[in-house]
């Protein structure tokens, strides 16, 4: 009998802790914040050499099946890795390509996509998921880009926003509405240089490589269709849910670092003859950060564990995302209050976290959307 199964244990397994520690060491050396500053100003918006090294560490295929060259390490391993990717504020195609796009291809696709999935797992191919739209809504209802049936296939027209890494992607994976209702979504895998497909840079607060993708009557045939038509809804919900929890992990890792930076400053900075960390108001600000980060950690870890264990996790994931959506903003705001004027200057590292936190807050379902998802589940659950 394994005594461990008798216990509620919230600590990450030893293997995941090892992954976490080695990732932290690697990224601390290989991607200090000074390097992030350079990358944010660059055309590419990420470090391709670092991406190759991450792929060599099997990170690009961490959650993907072994028969595709992945490590099949499970969702908690991905969660543990993203704690460190968040701490180091690494911009990379990992979440977009290896998690969202790959999960969609795995769930909805057949054999046609296996070769591409192999190259996603090895980091050699980047596939950019094109899901969000200009109205700024979330969920299946928000997908309005039309896939109109024509002879030989479909014609796609509309706009996608926040498409990550479209500028270097081999393919763009577009979610389009091929029929009305939640079951009317189809996925199309398009070449970036498809006729009628235009990629436009979207300058954003986090200086991430995000793009608008305009589709003007782009033709797609059976070859471009992923899986069956009108079937992609469930796969999209699952991909969004997983990616959302990994964003939470990034927020937790970054939040822990923000707390460390803030506490150090509160201890070192003296005004009116004493460290500012001695003032009760400043202590409140610091404890706000600690509380927000710790609850984000607990809530997201619960959802991650359930996903890893193959249990339904929609309720826990929505709770984690709803909390993170508020915490992301609050953590950096309180930190800025402690640092005061010093952190308003770009030379201070805090603003790197502040701008990235805004992206995390709003990506993949903001608080308002997640609270509605919770309410819908409460409504249908009955007294329990």
């Amino acid at each position: 009998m394994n005594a461990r199964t008798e216990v509620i244990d919230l600590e990450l397994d030893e293997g995941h802790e090892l992954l976490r520690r080695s990732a932290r060491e690697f990224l601390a050396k290989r991607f200090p914040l000074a390097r992030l500053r350079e990358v944010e100003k660059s055309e590419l918006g990420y470090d391709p050499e670092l991406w190759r090294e991450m792929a060599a560490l099997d990170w690009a295929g961490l959650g993907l099946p072994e028969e595709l060259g992945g490590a099949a390490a499970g969702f908690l391993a991905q969660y543990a890795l993203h704690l460190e990717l968040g701490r180091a504020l690494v911009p990379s195609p990992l979440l977009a390509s290896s998690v969202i796009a790959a999960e969609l291809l795995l769930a909805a696709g057949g054999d046609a996509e296996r070769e591409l999935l192999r190259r996603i797992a090895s980091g050699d191919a980047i596939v950019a998921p094109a899901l969000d739209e200009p109205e700024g809504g979330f969920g299946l209802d928000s997908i309005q880009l039309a896939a109109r049936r024509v002879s030989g296939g479909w014609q796609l027209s509309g706009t996608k926003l926040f498409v990550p890494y479209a500028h270097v992607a081999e393919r763009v994976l577009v979610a389009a509405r091929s029929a009305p209702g939640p079951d009317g979504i189809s996925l199309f895998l398009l070449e970036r240089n498809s006729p009628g497909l235009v990629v436009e840079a979207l300058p954003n607060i986090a200086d991430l490589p995000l793009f608008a993708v305009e589709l003007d009557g782009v033709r797609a045939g059976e070859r471009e269709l992923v899986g069956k038509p009108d079937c992609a809804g469930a796969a999209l919900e699952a991909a969004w849910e997983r990616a959302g929890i990994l964003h939470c992990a990034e927020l937790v890792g970054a939040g822990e670092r923000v707390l460390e930076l803030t506490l150090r400053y509160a201890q070192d900075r003296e005004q009116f003859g004493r460290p500012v960390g001695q003032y009760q108001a400043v202590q409140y600000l610091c404890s706000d950060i600690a509380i927000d980060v710790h609850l984000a950690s607990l809530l997201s870890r619960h959802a991650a564990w359930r996903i890893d264990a193959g249990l339904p996790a929609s309720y826990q994931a929505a709770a984690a995302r709803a909390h993170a959506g508020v915490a992301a903003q609050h953590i950096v705001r309180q930190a800025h209050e402690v640092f005061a004027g010093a952190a308003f200057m770009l030379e201070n590292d805090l603003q790197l976290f502040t701008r990235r936190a805004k992206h995390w807050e709003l990506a993949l379902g903001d608080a308002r959307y997640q609270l509605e998802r919770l309410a819908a589940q409460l409504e249908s659950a009955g007294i329990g």
Partner: protein
Amino acid sequence: MQIRFTPEQEAWRQEVRSFLDRELPPAQAFDTEFDEDEERWAFALEFTRKLGAKGWIGLGWPREYGGLERPAAERFILAEELTYREAPLVNSIGHGLAAGTLLLGGTEQQKRRFLPPIARMETFWVEGLSEPGAGSDLAALTTSARRDGSDWIVRGQKTYTTWGQRGDVMYLAARSDPSSRRHEGLSIFCLDMKAKGVTLSPLDNLGGGRQNHTYLDDVRLPAEMLLGEEGQGWRYIMNAFYGGGGHAAHMYYQRMLDTLVAWCREHRRGGRRVIDDPIVRQELGALAVMVESVRMLMYESVSNAERQRAPAFAGALGTVVMKELRPRFSETLHRIVGPLAQLRPSRFAPFEGLAEAWYRHSYANHAGGTPQVKRMVLATRGLGLPR
């Protein structure tokens, strides 16, 4: 990492539920902190005795003291089920505070003397910590215990004595070393509430409960009424406040949320069900996040207790969250319910007037220290900021 209960643990949960189905008619469920109805209290004592007869009061204690040596996860399951159904398990000062001190620091003799009667619900304990001049600053207490031969003579005043008028004995913190100050030199005693020199005066509170001032006028205590070691009182009290495991506060909030959701689905306002109001839906989602946050803090407590891990942030983070969350939960609930939330029981009051009661109860978030004091503990001992 593991958050799922085993099949054996789920079977235990079913066993507890069956017991409650048999022994707890829903009409007999009540909040023993804020309800002084004597008929209900008679039921509560009988109910607690029945739990004791099954050995469930001291579920985790060593067998020789009346316990069943069951692990933290099972104590947690029991707490979840009792809390969700608002089961009137009484004597929390006995099986919580007093038992905790005895198991931590009691002599063998003390354990054998005091624990079995608690396990059987034969002795009702009340709390003697706070004083008029020592609330959040408990270390400022002045009630003294001086030696007289082998006896102790206790003099002073305690306040906020919850359930004082029902108590057989008091868990008393007194200064046993007259030259000591603050948290040095404090000892814990078991004081007979019927002893000569003990008088009470009532303090009825906003929640609907009766607390008391307790006057101790040279009350004589035999030597064997000292609990644990002389002078170790502060350590025992801190263990009770920051030691973890076994509480299931999330089920208190889950019950309120479930009751509220059911009402929102039935009640109509402005031409639609309350639950169809988009603003209400946002607020319900916010309440769900609060419940899940508390659930995870309780899981973390069990996780730490089972693994014998010291809690992060000196155990203060969870406490701050709980104390600040209680008013917020109640206020959000009131926004959803609207003007009907002010009604005490009548045929118009939503869910039997509970919204009104829960709101008054939500002002009781200071026991064991205010949220602000706990924030100070979090900031200094938890985060290392300078005092």
